[in-house]
């Protein structure tokens, strides 16, 4: 028990169940449609309606942009259903400018490397993609180093 409390001060069950549901949520579209769902490409799909550059106009984005809205509507609804029936709203104390700057970096980085935590970290690894293994190892290591360094400088 000592180890559990050291590594999981908030308990472990909700993390396990949450992780299973994340996996099931990613598995359902695959079983039914054969499609692999990463989330960061949604942002590319949004711009594909207005930006004529080739990056936004590949066949894949034009074909998939319809259902990407459904996936994101589902993600938002899932968060809402949890809060309405099982939880309370927790509003982050991370300053807005930090969320915004981090958001820009996440936008640039995920498009440059081709995926995010779900696309590379879960779907890509589950498909045994070497590129996803390299990307996930790199962003996980970088994020841990950055978070540790920043926690010594900024406190909130």
């Amino acid at each position: 028990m000592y180890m559990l409390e050291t590594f999981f001060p908030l308990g472990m069950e909700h993390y396990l169940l949450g992780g299973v549901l994340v996996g099931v949520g990613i598995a359902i579209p695959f079983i039914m449609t054969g499609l692999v769902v990463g989330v960061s490409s949604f942002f590319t799909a949004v711009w594909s309606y207005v930006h004529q550059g080739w990056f936004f106009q590949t066949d894949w984005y034009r074909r998939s942009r319809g259902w990407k809205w459904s996936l994101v509507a589902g993600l938002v609804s899932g968060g809402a259903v949890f809060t309405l029936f099982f939880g309370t709203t927790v509003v982050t104390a991370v300053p807005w400018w930090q969320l915004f700057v981090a958001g820009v970096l996440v936008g640039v980085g995920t498009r440059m490397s081709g995926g995010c935590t779900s696309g590379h970290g879960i779907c890509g690894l589950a498909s045994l993609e070497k590129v996803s293994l390299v990307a996930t190892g790199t962003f996980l290591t970088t994020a841990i180093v950055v978070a540790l360094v920043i926690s010594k400088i900024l406190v909130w």
Partner: protein
Amino acid sequence: MVKITMYIGGLVFGFGLALAGATQPEIVLSFLRLEDFGLLVVIATALLVTFVVYQGVPRLLKKPPYGEEFDGHDGFPVTRRTIVGAVIFGIGWGLAGICPATSLAALGTGNWPLLYAVVGMLLGTLIYGSIRSQQDPTHS
């Protein structure tokens, strides 16, 4: 049918993230600061479920009920962009504990400041996509 399936998948996905607390940057940061390893459990469990389904289901079914074929191994090459992009993404993730799926699900939970993160992601995507579109698609 594809859209309904995507909506249901997204719903379960977003519910799971909210249940795990991954929609709260503070929880994500507590993992990245190695104070609470819960998020690692979330990722590992989700990966295990996804791995079993991705590898197993195509062996059981010839084709998906509402699709042509199961997406398989793409074999995209590792390039300089893979590494540089992952470092930039990692800096953003470590700076504020945010990633695309968790930020979008967070909006549903009422964690409204994550809208700043989502707007930032849209802007970052536009910046990178615009620059990239100026180059030849085969440019490395």
